[in-house]
């Protein structure tokens, strides 16, 4: 029964030959977390938004993020590179579409070619071997994460939308200048417009980080993370998901799910989990009046 379930899950997880990409476990014992440790993040794809109801009956909007073949491609270390980091790759790609230099890079790591590569700076005790697959259970329900992604492009926009300028009055004699910048500087001194003056221009498409989003649900079969709230960017966007930087130590997750899987979740532990795990909001019932 268990083997049937795990083979079903393995088949669902990758869609490819799951056996050839078995989890690469660390040769040594998993390192122990200290308050100075920094785990790796993952690359996920924003799939869309939906809603769920928590245990108090409150409706919570959630963004669905999916991990697609998220693996460690390179380990950067202090001696060679000057800092410790993991280069994570996401989403397999057909080899015929990959340039030879990149193909060499992936062959050195022994992983399939990836669509997106990002670096995550980690502490030396959180280093994972090349080829390790990162799964949704790397995060636990109830913990806080930061999500970074390029924002949706808005095209060429005026100063009112782009920088929140006030514009000019709609009436009282204002002629043809309702949404313009207004003044751009002083007079003879300095006699120029300063560099970086906020003006109309292309808006959107730059990286934004939304901090401290709560992980409401984890799906182990489809490798999904449901985060509360919105995440920048369009659907199918590559999103960098990391443990929240402003909630270090004991504040990152409820006490009974700590410590977080360090350096990442063990494959046996994932197999033992049910498919879906939902975080409770906790606290007091918001619909009960406080005495």
């Amino acid at each position, binding site marked *: 029964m268990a083997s049937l379930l795990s083979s079903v899950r393995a088949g669902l997880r990758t869609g490819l030959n799951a056996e050839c990409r078995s989890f690469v476990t660390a040769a040594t014992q998993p390192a122990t977390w200290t308050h100075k440790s920094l785990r790796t993040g993952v690359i996920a794809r924003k799939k869309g938004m939906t809603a769920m109801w928590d245990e108090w009956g409150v409706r919570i909007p959630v963004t669905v993020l999916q991990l697609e073949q998220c693996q460690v491609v390179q380990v950067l270390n202090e001696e060679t590179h000057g800092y410790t980091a993991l280069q994570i790759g996401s989403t397999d790609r057909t080899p015929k579409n990959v340039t030879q230099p990149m193909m060499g890079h992936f062959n050195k790591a022994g992983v399939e070619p990836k669509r997106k590569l990002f670096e995550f700076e980690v502490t030396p005790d959180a280093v994972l071997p090349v080829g390790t697959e990162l799964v949704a259970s790397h995060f636990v329900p109830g913990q806080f994460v930061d999500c970074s992604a390029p924002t949706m492009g808005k095209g060429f926009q005026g100063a009112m939308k782009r920088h929140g300028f006030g514009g000019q009055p709609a009436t009282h004699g204002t002629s043809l200048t309702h949404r313009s910048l207004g003044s751009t500087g002083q007079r003879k001194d300095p006699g120029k417009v300063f560099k970086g003056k906020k003006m109309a221009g292309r808006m959107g498409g730059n990286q934004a980080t939304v901090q401290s989003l709560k992980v409401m649900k984890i799906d182990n079969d489809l490798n999904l993370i449901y985060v509360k709230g919105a995440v920048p960017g369009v659907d199918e966007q590559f999103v960098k998901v990391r443990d929240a930087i402003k909630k270090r130590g004991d504040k990152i997750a409820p006490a009974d*799910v700590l410590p977080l899987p360090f350096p990442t979740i063990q494959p046996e*532990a994932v197999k033992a989990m049910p498919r879906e795990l939902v975080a409770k909001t906790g606290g007091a019932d918001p619909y009960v009046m406080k005495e």
Partner: protein
Amino acid sequence: MFSFTRTLGARLSGVTARFASTAANAAKPTYKAPASVTVPTQFKPNTKGQGLMQLIAKEEVKRMGADGRSKLFNKSHPDCLRPGDVVLVETLNSMSADKTSTFVGVLIAMDRRGLHSNFTVRNVVLKVGVEMKYMLYSPMIKSVRIMKRGEGFRRAKLFYLRDNPGRAFRLEGLVKQDKAAQAKKAAKSA
């Protein structure tokens, strides 16, 4: 017509049932959900023929609509709600206690949005028009009962009733009748 029992407790399913206790599994780690984590009703995912978002929306509808409330929005079901019906909606005040609130009114709008399906009920209470919008799959909704079928309403959205109510909101007699019928039923079953 139908009342739904609160299924929150029933949705917590045991994890250990998934793994038969064999010698091989005895060595493997088992997962015990901590207090801050719920294990909802589990389904087997099947992405064939539909995208990821469609699949998870369907699963959530199955989970939240386990008490059969989807039939209220299913046109081919005889118990489907129709605009113009007089409905009685019973909602839990909170998930901690069993106290409920009741609202009776005319169903003036139904929005079919999958998991986010909702309907609007309107009544005139103490000379003040009140509209209540309910999310169909909200766990706070205990029951939705049709007190009287609407007749002669030829629109999907009855927003015109805000300006031209006619006799649509003369519901006191109906409520009285229904209360008496409920009391009789309770006395019979007791």
